[in-house]
């Protein structure tokens, strides 16, 4: 029965090392499942046919690639644990007369078995869960889905191909390792002595300083644009600092503790501290990676969840009313003339035809310009804007001039201003000066900064902050610059009339009204074009109902991506911990055996193990929590750029994400410490 010999040997090998292979196979299955689901969703015809679905699939397409690459790296990494543990077994086979060729055959069979199990199981799970995922996405897009289980042959083939390649590469890598080593090395590969780690004070200190600087940066930045620019700098600093602190800092701290004799020579601390030094030396980089992975997951999940939950808010900020009309003219007198009145009439007429009335009418004039503000003076020339440095980004503003009467009417206020006085309202940033001048004009005194004004979509679309200047005499203030052209020859100032209103009809009715309105407006501008002076009149019409699907497609896609990737990364982080602990368990076995002989009680051993596992496990989680807390102000400011301003929502979501994450973490901690105890106490019965 020579033919069944190798498969049998391979199968026994896997079964005998259950504790190592079960999590590995489960990981493989999980990866296959996740990849299939992602791949399925991107190619699902049902989703493509839905409004917003194509946007969502575009987002997920990104996720497919991320998961593919991640699966390769991650499976390689977990497999290296397996190979290390099994080298001894292979060494024994080798000495017993099995050539490397025979070993290769055993390994090949092993890979085949593992690949078959994980691909089979993973695909079945993937097909089942892909339906749930699809329904979830359909739900996010606010559509109805059927409960028919569908297969996507393209996705299956893609999954099979990718993982076949990954398993093949892993096999090659294992064979390479076996091939390069000789039997004696194979037998002894596990217990090679290692030097006690030395504390690198310089690196530890550097880590602390960099981390402090990054934290300071994160907390001190006030401006959303600066936040965007510095976010990546801060992220890189935190990553570097985390690695330095985990690798050098932890050893340094242990060394410090060892120097404090009164602390060190205590039953509780003695064993734990001295083994922690080695543990951190070996695992510092791994733990730092886990910490960073955790932080990334948390930031990603809280941001995407927040964006998704806040989609309606964002929509409202971007489209202040259900239907928004924007009439753009070139001369000031047009703002009060015929076209404006015509548009007003048209809107209410069409709404009436559908049995709707106009609610929450937003009706105001505005003059908009982009300005570089320097020392309380708006630079009308604008040439400097295009040569400015990134650091001066904060001084570029979107400026809106609004008549005071419109402000009072819209906000229900009764403010009065003397000539030469203005009211001010800013978004995303603060204006510090107490007067403002337009070009070479007289400085206008800022009488008051008001807390609120109607949203307009322009502000929501831009990264730069907006400044609303409410002036008592609109025409007089703007007259001097209406005909000024900037260095490109375009007029510096654009004159607009905003007209928006809410409708209480369903989305379908709203879309219908919007379309009719657009058609009438188009004809209006053709027929009335000449009488009003030709092309100096344009009007745009946007409706929130029509854009909603697109928004949900994007934010929902991000949300879904965040969740799926989050799950994969949590899975990965947790599994790495498990393998680390288990492989350390084998190394610690003999150590705890000795301690028991010298008179350490079972209870002492348990306590010492517990404190060590706790530290190793929860250090990354805690650090991730601290990172997240410090990243919070930055995230909040960046989300403002996505027109999400609900601070409470963000706090709630972030805390929830952290708690859910911690819950899974604790779960795995329990499983792991159990496995670890089982391994370590396995040594206690052996004779001296």
């Amino acid at each position, binding site marked *: 029965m020579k033919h069944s010999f190798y498969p049998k040997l391979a199968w026994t090998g896997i079964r005998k090392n259950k504790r190592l292979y079960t999590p590995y196979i489960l990981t493989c299955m999980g990866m296959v499942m996740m990849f299939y689901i992602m791949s399925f969703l991107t190619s699902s015809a049902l989703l493509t046919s839905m409004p917003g679905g194509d946007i969502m699939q575009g987002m997920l397409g990104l996720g497919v690639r991320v998961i593919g690459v991640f699966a390769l790296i991650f499976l390689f990494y977990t497999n290296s644990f397996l190979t290390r543990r099994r080298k001894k077994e292979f060494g024994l086979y080798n000495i017993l007369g099995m050539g490397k060729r025979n070993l290769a055959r055993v390994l090949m069979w092993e890979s085949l078995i593992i690949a078959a199990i994980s691909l089979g199981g993973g695909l079945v799970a993937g097909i089942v869960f892909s339906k749930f995922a699809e329904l979830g996405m359909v739900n996010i897009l606010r559509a109805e889905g059927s409960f028919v289980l569908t297969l996507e042959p393209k996705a299956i083939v893609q999954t099979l191909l990718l993982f076949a390649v990954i398993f093949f590469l892993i096999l090659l890598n294992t064979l390479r390792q076996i091939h390069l080593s000789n039997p004696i090395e194979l037998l002894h590969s596990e217990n090679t002595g290692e030097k006690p780690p030395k504390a690198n004070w310089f690196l530890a200190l550097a880590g602390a300083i960099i981390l402090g600087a990054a934290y300071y940066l994160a907390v001190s930045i006030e401006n959303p644009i600066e936040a965007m620019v510095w976010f990546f700098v801060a992220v890189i600093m935190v990553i570097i600092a985390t690695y330095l602190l985990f690798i050098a800092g932890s050893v340094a701290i242990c060394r410090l503790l060892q120097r404090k004799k009164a602390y060190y020579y205590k039953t509780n601390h003695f064993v734990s501290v001295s083994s922690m030094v080695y543990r951190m030396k070996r695992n510092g980089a791994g733990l730092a990676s886990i910490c960073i992975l955790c932080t990334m997951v948390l930031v990603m999940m809280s941001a995407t969840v927040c964006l998704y939950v806040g989609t309606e808010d964002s929509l409202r900020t971007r489209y202040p009313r259900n239907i928004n009309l924007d009439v753009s003219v070139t001369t000031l007198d047009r703002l009060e003339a015929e076209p404006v009145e015509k548009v007003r009439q048209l809107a209410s007429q069409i709404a009436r035809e559908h049995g709707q009335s106009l609610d929450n009418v937003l009706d105001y004039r505005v003059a908009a310009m982009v300005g570089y503000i320097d020392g309380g003076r708006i630079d009308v020339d604008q040439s400097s804007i295009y040569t400015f440095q990134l650091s001066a980004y904060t001084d570029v503003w979107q400026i809106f001039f609004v008549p005071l009467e419109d402000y009072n009417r819209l906000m229900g206020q009764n403010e009065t201003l003397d000539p030469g006085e203005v009211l001010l309202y800013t978004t995303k940033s603060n204006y510090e000066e107490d007067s403002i001048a337009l070009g070479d004009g007289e400085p206008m005194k800022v009488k008051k900064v008001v807390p609120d004004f109607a949203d307009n979509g322009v502000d929501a679309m831009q990264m730069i902050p907006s400044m609303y200047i409410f002036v008592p005499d609109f025409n007089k203030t703007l007259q001097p610059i209406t005909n000024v052209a900037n260095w490109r020859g375009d007029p510096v100032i654009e004159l607009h009339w905003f007209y928006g209103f809410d409708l209480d009809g369903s989305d379908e009715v709203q879309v219908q009204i919007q379309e009719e309105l657009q058609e009438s407006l188009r004809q209006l501008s053709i027929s009335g074009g000449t009488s009003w002076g030709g092309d100096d009149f344009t009007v745009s019409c946007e409706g929130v109902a029509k854009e909603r699907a697109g928004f949900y497609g994007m934010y929902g896609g991000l949300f879904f991506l965040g969740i799926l990737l989050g799950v994969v990364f949590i899975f990965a982080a947790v599994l790495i911990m498990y393998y680390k602990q288990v492989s350390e368990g084998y190394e610690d076995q003999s150590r705890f055996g000795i301690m028991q002989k010298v008179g350490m009680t079972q209870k002492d051993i348990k306590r010492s193990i517990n404190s060590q596992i706790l530290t190793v496990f929860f250090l990354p989680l805690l650090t991730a929590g601290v990172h997240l807390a410090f990243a919070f102000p930055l995230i909040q400011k960046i989300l403002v750029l996505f027109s999400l301003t609900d601070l409470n929502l963000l706090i709630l979501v972030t805390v929830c994400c952290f708690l859910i994450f911690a819950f899974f973490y604790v779960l795995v901690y329990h499983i792991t410490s159990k496995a670890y105890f089982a391994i370590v106490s396995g040594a206690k019965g052996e*004779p001296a």
Partner: protein
Amino acid sequence: MSILEVNGLKKVYTTRFGGNKVEALKNVSFTVEQGEYVAIMGESGSGKTTLLNILAALDKPTNGIVSLDGRDLSKVKESAVSAFRRDNLGFVFQDFNLLDTFTLEDNIYLPLVLAGKHYTEMKQRLTPIASQLGIADILKKYPYEVSGGQKQRAAVARALITNPRLILADEPTGALDSRATDELLRLFSEINRKGQTILMVTHSVKAASHAGRVLFIKDGEVFHQIYRGNSTNEQLYQKISDTLTMLATGGDRR
């Protein structure tokens, strides 16, 4: 007064499926007096290691009594066994059993730390022991940095530092070269002269020839014993060799 009394000791191992029973110790009785230096010899499989494990309270006998200072080991509560071992017994192993994550100094302190002793007291205790064993200069080194002989001397220091009633040595010279062996045996004799009771299990005739009394175990029973009397190490060596020859050849009394 005898420090250790072993009476009618019997140990039966049952194989995993309950089928075969293996009798490792049949009926072992002997006593060790305060300040004695006893070597136990026997072939592989004669039950030496089983005996030592039972004496160290690492294993329980099927039958019979072991009492240390008149205290029955089987009466020591399970939870107190570790503390009992720590306070009353010192161990020296063939493969040293030093922890590679500790310096030699910390390895020696280990039992005291577990007993909750203060650092200054530990330091005081270590100083004379370290100079006696000649390891004062290498205390800050790690096990992997020193030779086998030095490791074993550190292990002896660890056994001595708790002032144990009895030192149990399991093939202490087994992993040492001949120079280190001589040095260790000299140290053992010196420690013994200062009043320390030592019980050593060994294969080596040379090691046994340094003892004050040699017990021979065969087939789970104490077969014979030799007292040093006034003999020199060399004379005792000869006697032991002769006894072993007799044991191996037709000298079987049954």
